[in-house]
């Protein structure tokens, strides 16, 4: 080959390479091939539809829109038309579609054989359940983690039909509040008109995270504080740690857990000194109880707040046009009745009953299931008290315990003692969607569909300022072999000869909707907003319950019940007192943070990434204390500690957080799961182990806010 030919070949080759599309095509293909591996799932094609549903993973009661593609749910949005959501959603509820396929789902009925649970058919499961219930006779109890659905009515009716009175709610804010309301002589349930308040004082109650209808509360705050606009609502947070709600509040008042009642009554003291009176029954008794038990000095000992700070809160309340006090436990349980009662007393002192932005007495749901126990009766039973007595063998364990939407093996205080008590139960039945700690120790596990897979209803979750009723119908058929718990129980009941009046849960819901019509109401929506109707704004056309809920809307009623029986006589129990100290000098402030789950659901897969490495990492989790407390007890950032109480101990590392009060250890609930799946396991310890149940002063009911601990 000559030089010319060689150059021609090179130049020609170069030009040819540049001109031919082959290398570019190959490069492009290579990048596509190397990104299209068969083991990476493909996304579905097709249009999506929105189907209304409901989330009950937390207390918020949000109505949701489920995004479905070809009938398959793939995401969940807050429903802008639903008054408890207004488009917002919690970090738990937003996962609900993914949780359909959670690795923790119970996929078929399971029966205990020795140390393991083995799959059985539904027929065998029902037969076994019927056999055990028949043998137990009246020696049966049930515990429910749901106080808004008719499912609990079916359970309580079943237990009553068997001749037992033992139907319980799992401990929760709304349980304590229900009891406190009754103690003051209240009928029905208390509702809080947050949207119309111009000042909200949250004492303990974590209104944006754990207390009541927290998504709705957050939306009320949102709308009243438009970005760059006029502020129409001020929020003051009193809590032991500058938590998430306190981060956005106008003011934060540090108050020890367990001393919420002392703070509320301390404020009442100043209001009364300023001439406030409720004008209602029991005021004289209340005034003398407050003066003797909650003087500024005593309140300072109990709360750490100076008389000036407490007086300032009283002044803020007195000078607001539409103040609202919301008191409760800073971690959504165990706060007892005194705090709620004291908060209600403040509202009465401020004249906030049946006033816009105040409190209202709302009717309870009508009973439709034959023989179901009224809410009042279930509230009179205390599950923690009962289990403690079972554990101590002061009470015989039930032959059969039915756990519905409840995980007592994980979520009760003094967890280890409670687990021992649960072990004493003759036959433990867990109606659960997930393989939680209770299912893992149960004798029979009956898989429950998620709300998206079943018919479910919800009547007025605690906190709502108006009656509301929402019904979810199945968006998808159950993806596993699950049957709604209430349907199972109705079938078993009829086999045992108990007549509960219904053959299916769907009929129960229809009957409830029918019964609710008597209250009169309307379908909520963008043009029919309950908080506006409450103050005479807008006159939505009335609607039957069925029509509203079938259209996926919330049905709302402005009905109230007579509140003339409310009395302040029992609103100030006990005396303000400083934490006990002694061997356990530190006050434990459990933290309820929704992104790490609730008492019903453990950390969902998609929520793991929301946990900071200062909250949990490499298998351990962090408790928080301020630098002064840490140095006082010889510990510091990242150090490993054992936090011990009278009843148990947990292992953790320390994270220095200056938002925690002196002498307080803040510890997040929701960690330390032993069941569930790899997303929830191997992360820290369960704080419930070190919660210590005491007897609430003046009430003699279990109370575990303000548990005392030490660093061992």
């Amino acid at each position: 080959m000559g030089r010319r030919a060689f150059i021609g070949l090179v130049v020609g080759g170069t030009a040819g390479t540049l001109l031919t599309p082959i290398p570019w095509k190959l490069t492009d293909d290579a990048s596509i091939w190397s990104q299209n591996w068969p083991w990476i799932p493909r996304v579905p094609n097709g249009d999506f539809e929105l189907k209304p549903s409901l989330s009950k993973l937390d207390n918020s009661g949000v109505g949701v829109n489920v995004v479905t593609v070809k009938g398959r749910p793939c995401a969940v949005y807050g429903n802008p038309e639903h008054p408890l959501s207004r488009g917002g959603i919690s970090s738990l509820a937003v996962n609900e579609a993914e949780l359909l396929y959670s690795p923790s789902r119970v996929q078929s009925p399971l029966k205990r054989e020795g140390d393991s649970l083995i799959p059985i058919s539904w027929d065998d499961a029902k037969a076994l359940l019927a056999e055990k219930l028949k043998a137990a006779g009246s020696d049966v109890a049930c515990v429910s983690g749901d106080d808004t659905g008719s499912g609990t009515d079916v359970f309580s009716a079943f237990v009553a039909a068997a001749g037992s009175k033992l139907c319980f709610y799992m401990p929760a804010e709304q349980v304590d509040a229900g009891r406190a309301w009754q103690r003051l002589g209240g009928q029905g349930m208390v509702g809080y008109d947050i949207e119309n308040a111009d000042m909200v004082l949250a004492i303990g109650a974590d209104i944006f995270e754990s207390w009541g209808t927290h998504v709705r509360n957050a939306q009320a705050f949102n709308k009243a504080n438009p970005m760059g606009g006029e502020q129409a609502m001020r929020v003051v947070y009193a809590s032991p740690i500058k938590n998430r709600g306190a981060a956005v509040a106008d003011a934060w008042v540090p108050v020890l857990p367990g001393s919420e009642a002392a703070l509320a009554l301390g404020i009442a003291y100043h209001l009364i000194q300023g001439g406030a009176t409720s004008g209602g029954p029991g005021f004289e008794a209340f005034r003398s109880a407050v003066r003797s038990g909650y003087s500024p000095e005593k309140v300072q000992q109990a709360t750490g707040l100076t008389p000036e700070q407490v007086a300032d809160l009283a002044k803020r309340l007195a000078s607001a046009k539409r103040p609202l006090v919301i008191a409760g436990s800073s971690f959504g349980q165990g706060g007892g009745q005194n705090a709620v009662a004291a908060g209600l007393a403040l509202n009465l002192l401020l004249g906030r009953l049946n006033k816009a932005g105040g409190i209202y007495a709302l009717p309870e749901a009508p009973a439709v299931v034959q023989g179901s126990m009224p809410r009042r009766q279930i509230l009179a039973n205390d599950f923690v008290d009962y289990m403690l007595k079972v554990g101590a063998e002061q009470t015989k364990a039930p032959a059969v315990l039915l756990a519905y939407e409840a995980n007592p093996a994980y979520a009760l205080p003094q967890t280890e003692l409670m687990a021992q008590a649960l072990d004493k139960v003759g036959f433990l039945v867990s109606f659960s969607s997930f393989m939680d700690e209770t299912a893992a120790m149960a004798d029979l596990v009956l898989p429950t569909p998620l709300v998206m897979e079943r018919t479910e209803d919800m009547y007025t979750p605690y906190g709502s300022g108006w009656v509301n009723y929402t019904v979810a119908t199945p968006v998808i058929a159950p993806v596993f072999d699950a049957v709604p718990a209430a349907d199972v129980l109705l079938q078993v009941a009829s086999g045992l000869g108990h007549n509960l009046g219904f053959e299916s849960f769907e009929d129960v819901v229809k009957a409830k909707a029918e019964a609710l019509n008597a209250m009169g109401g309307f379908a909520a929506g963008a043009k029919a907003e309950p908080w506006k109707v409450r103050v005479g704004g807008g006159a939505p056309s009335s609607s039957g319950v069925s029509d509203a809920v079938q259209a996926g809307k919330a049905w709302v009623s402005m009905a109230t019940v007579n509140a003339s029986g409310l009395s302040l006589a029992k609103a100030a129990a006990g005396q303000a007192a400083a934490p006990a100290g002694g061997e356990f000098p530190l006050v434990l402030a459990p933290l309820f943070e929704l992104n790490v789950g609730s008492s019903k659901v453990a950390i969902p897969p998609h929520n793991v990434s929301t946990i900071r490495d200062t909250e949990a990492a490499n298998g351990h989790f962090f408790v928080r204390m301020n630098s002064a407390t840490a140095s006082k007890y010889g510990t510091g950032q990242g150090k490993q500690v054992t936090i011990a109480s009278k009843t148990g101990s947990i292992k953790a590392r320390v994270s220095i957080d200056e938002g925690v009060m002196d002498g307080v250890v803040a510890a997040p609930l929701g960690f330390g799961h032993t069941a569930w799946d790899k997303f929830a396991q191997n992360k820290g310890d369960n704080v419930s182990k070190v919660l210590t149940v005491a007897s609430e002063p003046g009430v003699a009911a279990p109370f575990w806010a303000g548990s005392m601990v030490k660093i061992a």
Partner: protein
Amino acid sequence: MSVQREFHTKWGMVIDLDKCTGCGACMVACQVENNIAPTPDASDMTRVLTWMLVYKLENKQKFPNYDVAYLPRPCMQCENPSCVPVCPVVATTKDEEGGIVSQIYPRCIGCRYCMAACPYHVRYFNWFDPQWPAGMEKTLTPFSSTRPRGVVEKCHFCHHRFMAAKEKARATGGEPMKLAEDAYIPACVEACPTGALIFGNLKDPTHQVAKLSHSKNAKRLLERLGGKPQVYYMSKRQWVLDMLDNDLGDGSHGGVTGGGNHG
């Protein structure tokens, strides 16, 4: 030198740090919407994909003067992005009306130059193939394709929602290039229970974000770097505003000041 294009529509976000409780709903909503696979352990945050990430800001004071704020951080969709000019394969561009910085997965060769360039840590590298628990892949949304190992990904203001809003506008006789304020909002903005995030066209004076971005309490993150983010943060607290500029408390800001000369 980078060349900045001007657009008629500039999608932007205003985030009120006085309204964010750090609850995480935006983070989870984003993951679900955009098919980000869950991780069993988030101890090593460099391996976790969080297009939207909520940072915790603290004022470094001792109790009781301590204060805290939460800062949700999506992609800033900078007007003058650092990531775009450094990409050797044009896998990330800023060339579409709306001013959203794109991320084209099939083009990405995983060199991570963009990650090094981005001062906001908004870009994430897939160190592993995404894995969903068995069955959970049935809940993938149609909105965002799955990404393999070796690819960089980031927030794109839920671009699929922008497309859908334009389509809807065309179908209903509206103007796709003049969308109403609530016609297109990303999943994080929609989910936020306290309304801490709002979204709209920074160039449309009728949109709230346009007004708020000029507020005296509004500031962009690390503004002095010259990236001109399309995400604004608002706070009435001076310490929070100072922190947005990485204020170290002694008047210095760490790193290099000045800027705008990258690319």
